[in-house]
């Protein structure tokens, strides 16, 4: 009886933990949090929700973002869906390109979830996420919105 009770408690714990890690990603709510960042100068253009499973191997994800010359844009990021910080960078060329340059490195701050970046020169850019390795598997997501003037 004691063994069964213990087993059931473990099962219950797993169930609660699994539901909790999945709840980190309500991408609709995360986008809603970002939208005020567009006001008043920018209009919504596009967005991307990137969902991750952190595991024992570090991973990368890259998003290609086409921008038009001479136009003004804002990149908005919401890190509230991440159970653990990831590295967020923006590059000038896609991964593997010899002339790839780092344009922006998001430095995450404690108690801040919303970040913005306004490129000084518009061209195709590459948002790069590096997801660190973890011991216990976690899930989460990153939401990105692009606004234009």
């Amino acid at each position, binding site marked *: 009886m004691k063994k069964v009770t213990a*087993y059931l408690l473990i099962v219950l714990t797993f169930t609660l933990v699994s*539901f909790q890690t*999945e709840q980190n990603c309500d*991408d609709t709510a995360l986008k809603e949090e970002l939208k005020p960042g567009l006001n008043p100068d920018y209009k919504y253009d596009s*967005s991307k929700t990137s969902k991750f499973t952190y595991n024992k*191997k570090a991973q990368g994800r890259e*998003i290609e973002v086409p921008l038009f010359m001479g136009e003004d844009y804002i990149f908005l990021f919401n890190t509230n869906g991440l159970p653990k910080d990831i590295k967020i960078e923006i590059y000038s060329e896609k*991964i593997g390109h010899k002339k790839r340059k780092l344009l922006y490195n998001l430095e995450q701050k404690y108690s801040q979830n919303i970040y913005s970046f306004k490129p000084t020169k518009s061209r195709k850019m590459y948002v790069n996420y*590096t997801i660190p390795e973890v011991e216990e598997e976690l899930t989460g997501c990153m939401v990105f919105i692009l606004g234009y003037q």
Partner: protein
Amino acid sequence: MYKKTIKVASIIVMSSLIYACGGEETLTEEVVIASEEEVAEENVNQIDYVLPSPLQIAELFKRAGLTYIGDITNSPENIDNYNTKYDQKLNYGVYSADMAYCIMNNQAQESINYLATLSKLSEKIWMTDIMGSMGLTDRLEANVGNEDSLTYIMADLQMQMDDYLDGNGLGHTGSIIFAGAWIETLYLGTNVNENERNKKLISRLSEQSVVLGSIIGSIKQNDAENDYAELISDLENINNIFNSYDEDFMLSDEAVSNLGIQIKALRAKIVGA
């Protein structure tokens, strides 16, 4: 009794684990540990694409001198010819671009007609909720002549549509819709340029290779069944035209003319003209 309890508990554990893992990410079984510094270039295992909104491209072209020519947009009456999901999605994009073109050029009644067409077509591709929930017709009618407000309304529509597609696992539909919108916008741009050569418009047409690569990449990424092989092939043929840039990254007049011919042919295939 104990055996039954353990069996049920095991099912619950398995269910929890499957639920926690989610539907989108694949679990890896490797136990290799790597530092973040080692990851950067070697282990990017997914490239994603973000496509600009048809509205942004319409506004770009408008500022570059895209004027209104009546009757070159896709007739709303053609909607009854689109019976496959493929045709419906592509032409949803075509009509979106036409609506943006009309809004940019203060064609109020045409804009409302295209909105009605989009509502009708959205039912066919299961997007009814977006059109209904936003009260768009009332908002458009209330802001006739106010281009600024109308563009914000269209941006809202784009946001709602993206949320709907993402939330329902239909991101691939967005790529096809955008392909239709992009082809229609280039059709409008090359047509207007044929009427009256415009260097700014040629510059924006030349720049479209920036987007086309992303469109092709995005469609390919979601085309495991090869449903869009022909569209991809047609777009890749158009992409070849952008290899003939001059030193200022502008297409020559001959290349622009060639672009117009190819776009016109592809557009005719899509709208059934």
